[in-house]
């Protein structure tokens, strides 16, 4: 439990930092950081329940996309302002690092494995976001038709 709390706090702080770095307006900073925290919470929860590699990333990123769309609708600004920072904690920075660290040490088998983890995570995050986007498009009429 202590580990999870550290994850949530650091996710909040790091998303706050990155939103600052991306030049997000000051009054949106807290909302973006909260999005990061909730996204990680959803990830931890679904990871715990499903015991599986692919789906938790998908669920968490779909949640982040929903959260971003909702805030964008409420605050009348582009969803990407909240989406980009919120999904950052899901981004496989760790496994990307271990991929090359293993490669440096000549452990090719291990390098391949973490490389695969990296690619799978990137794919499932992207899939989660795309599902939400498709759902939104489904609810919007085609341009040019009355």
């Amino acid at each position, binding site marked *: 439990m202590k580990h999870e709390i550290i994850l949530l706090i650091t996710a909040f702080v*790091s998303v706050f930092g990155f939103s600052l770095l991306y030049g997000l307006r000051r009054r949106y900073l807290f909302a973006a950081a909260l999005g990061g925290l909730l996204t990680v919470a959803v990830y931890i929860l679904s990871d715990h329940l499903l015991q599986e590699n692919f789906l938790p990333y998908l669920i968490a990123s779909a949640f982040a996309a929903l959260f971003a769309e909702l805030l964008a609708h409420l605050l009348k600004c*582009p969803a990407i*302002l909240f989406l*980009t920072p919120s999904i950052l*904690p899901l981004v496989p920075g*760790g496994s990307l*690092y271990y991929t090359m660290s293993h490669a440096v040490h000549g452990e090719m088998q291990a390098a391949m494995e973490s490389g695969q983890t990296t690619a799978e995570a990137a794919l499932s*995050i992207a899939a989660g976001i795309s599902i939400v986007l498709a759902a939104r498009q489904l609810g919007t009429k085609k341009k040019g038709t009355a």
Partner: protein
Amino acid sequence: MNALCEDNKKKLVPCLLEMGDLLLDCGAEISRVEDTLQRVGQAYGAVRIDVFAIPSLIVLNAVFPDQSVETQSRRIRSNGSIDFYRLEKLNAVSRRCCADPMPIGELEEALRKVSAGQKPGWRFLLGSMIGAGAFAVFFGGTVWDGLGAAAAALFICFLQKALGRTELNQVAANLLISLTAGLLVGGLTVLFPVLHMDMILIGDIMLLIPGLAMTNAIRNMLIGDTVSGVVRLAESLIWAIALAGGFMVAMLLLQRLGVAA
């Protein structure tokens, strides 16, 4: 709206291209760029706007009510950095144009203002330090690792700023940054043995983005912007290899010196 005189027609297309250029430079999605240019163009009275954008090029074709056609393209050079400050300003400008098109001269002026505007530098520094530091802890480092990552982030920021002022391409820049950052962090871990080199580097890697770029690339492909997705994916893989190459050389050097395991 037939208020489009000859002069405005000539100015509209370059104006739209400038807007698209700025949007891509801030890290806007391809679909947003195409959509925005189309809406704004139509708001200014074009009967048809065709836009094709990829990360390095925008082609725009406008058809006006008198059947005259204007086509222009622009080569885009963006380094994949994200700037929400300008993105929001551009969004506000385009919303205003769609609701009630301002005179084209005013639009030119508004775009010039956005282009010149810079987000405050201290935010960039502070944000990088907080972000990298917290990520080092997030991925399993100690608080000390977090502080180490924040210190290295400061260095990376200055290096990024300095290299951004030169003509150096993005691949070589990433290679150079990761090499020097790797050596710096290795040096830090020698000076302060409580630090873990891998945790600090993982935190700082998040500043150098390929993970996020890769996700965006795949998302582009999944929503139908296939060409952009493929371009971005190839680009982000090459960046990742450059980063890995720089870190690898740093690690090997440190190993030779008997510093790191």
